[in-house]
């Protein structure tokens, strides 16, 4: 059995391209590790950007808070968060990793509130930079550590952000957005197709012909253990909103 955090992080990592600029924000251990893994595997020339403003850091210890000063280590230059939003605004940020407490069938996200917006049942943290980044980044990769009908919904309680979503990675599958709608691209090994359908609040189609996500290779598993020996990625399963 492949740990869901491992499968998700590896799947996210493989979506990155060599030579591109890739960014993650706060509360993003999996995106942080996915980027570091991609740099060690197929994307050595990827430019790693994050909220500390460091560029291509070589952290010797990974923070759970993905704005931590641990991410300054090894960086040879320092920019500001404003610089990074500006980069995206002028179309020079290739890939942004973003999350959502709720995600709909168009890949739009809610990170603002559950229930009535003015007097919510649950006030969520807010979308951070997502409303600005989702329409301006070249593409957006979403991830969510819970795949259930409360997370993947027919209708969002509030649209925090919408835009250039390309893929959504979950513990069960990878969605790809085609013609504006999410479709199942691959199902993780050991997950039944009917589980994906039953766990998703919007209509999706799967069948026996749906692709299976390629399991992590020995090299990916070894590098993942080197990069993240304390499994900070698993912190996302403890507290995801």
């Amino acid at each position, binding site marked *: 059995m492949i740990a869901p955090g491992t499968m998700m992080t590896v799947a996210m990592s493989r979506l990155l391209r060599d030579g591109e600029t890739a960014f993650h924000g706060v509360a993003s251990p999996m995106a942080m590790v996915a980027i570091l893994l991609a740099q060690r595997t197929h994307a050595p020339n990827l430019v790693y950007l994050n909220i500390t403003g460091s560029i291509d850091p070589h952290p010797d210890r990974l923070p759970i808070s993905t704005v931590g000063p641990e991410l300054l280590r090894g960086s040879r230059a320092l920019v500001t968060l404003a610089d990074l939003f500006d980069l995206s605004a002028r179309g020079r940020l290739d890939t942004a990793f973003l999350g959502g407490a709720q995600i709909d069938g168009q890949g739009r996200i809610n990170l*603002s509130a559950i229930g009535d917006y003015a007097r919510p049942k649950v006030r969520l943290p807010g979308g951070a930079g997502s409303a600005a980044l989702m329409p301006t980044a070249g593409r957006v990769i979403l991830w969510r550590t819970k795949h259930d009908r409360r997370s993947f919904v027919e209708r969002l309680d509030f649209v925090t952000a919408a835009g250039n979503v390309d893929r959504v990675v979950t513990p069960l599958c990878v969605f790809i957005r085609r013609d504006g709608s999410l479709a199942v691209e691959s199902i993780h090994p050991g997950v039944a197709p009917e589980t994906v359908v039953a766990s998703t609040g919007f209509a999706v189609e799967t069948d026996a012909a749906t692709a299976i996500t390629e399991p992590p290779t020995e090299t990916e598993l070894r590098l993942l253990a080197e990069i993240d020996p304390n499994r900070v990625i698993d912190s996302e399963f403890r507290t995801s909103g």
Partner: protein
Amino acid sequence: MRDKLTSMTDAIAVVADNQTIALGGNTLHRGPSAAAHELIRQGRRGLEIVKTAGAYDVDLLCGMGVASSVSAGFIGFETAYGLAPSYRRGVERGTVEAREHACYTVIAGLRAAIQGIPFMPVAGMTGSDVPAARGFRSVVDPYSGRSVVAAPAIMPDVAIIHVQESDRQGNARIIGTRFEDVLMAQAARRVIITAERIVDGATFEAMPEVVAIPGFMVEMVVEAPRGAWPCSCAGAYEQDDAFLAEYVAASQDADRLHAFVRDHVLTHDPVSV
């Protein structure tokens, strides 16, 4: 330039009820925690807090009745500790107003204030409910005819920024990430610097480029060793995870929070001189 070294008590005394206060730092890192504690001691009420992404300082000020609105893109303790309990409770019960932003609209609003103009056009924001929820309007580009969201200017009454080093004139050095602190200092009417250590300003003469905030923009300087605690302060100390776990647990309930703050927060900071 004049000597601006001030006690924490006297510096925070300039903050008036119902003002807009920008807090430097980001989530669990280099926030002006000791200054936030002093705002609680002095019983300030009705503050609007401005920050791109906040955690301990914002949650604490909401829970202790100091803040009544928060203009920010993100308030939470990230994956280590999850949602911000007192902020969440305040918004859900209607005692705290979430003035939701994208972090970039906070930056754009500060930039408008810095440039002395009423708003700043900001890219993106299409398809989001945030502009309508917040009453952010759009303007038409007079050249292309295209519509763009206009973030209103944010001019904080006071910016409170914790740094590693400042001289007595307020020339402030930030080691590591500056976050939005320089923008806040430029946009605000008044600037309070709290510093891990007060240094001889002559040392900056050999390397003035390390100074992030020039002293002439600063009104007061407070010596505040461990002034970001329990947040991290790059080059000085890491975040206090054990304390933050206790804080988040106490923050789940208003009565527990008040007792915790009385016994474990307000007792912590060194008595200012």
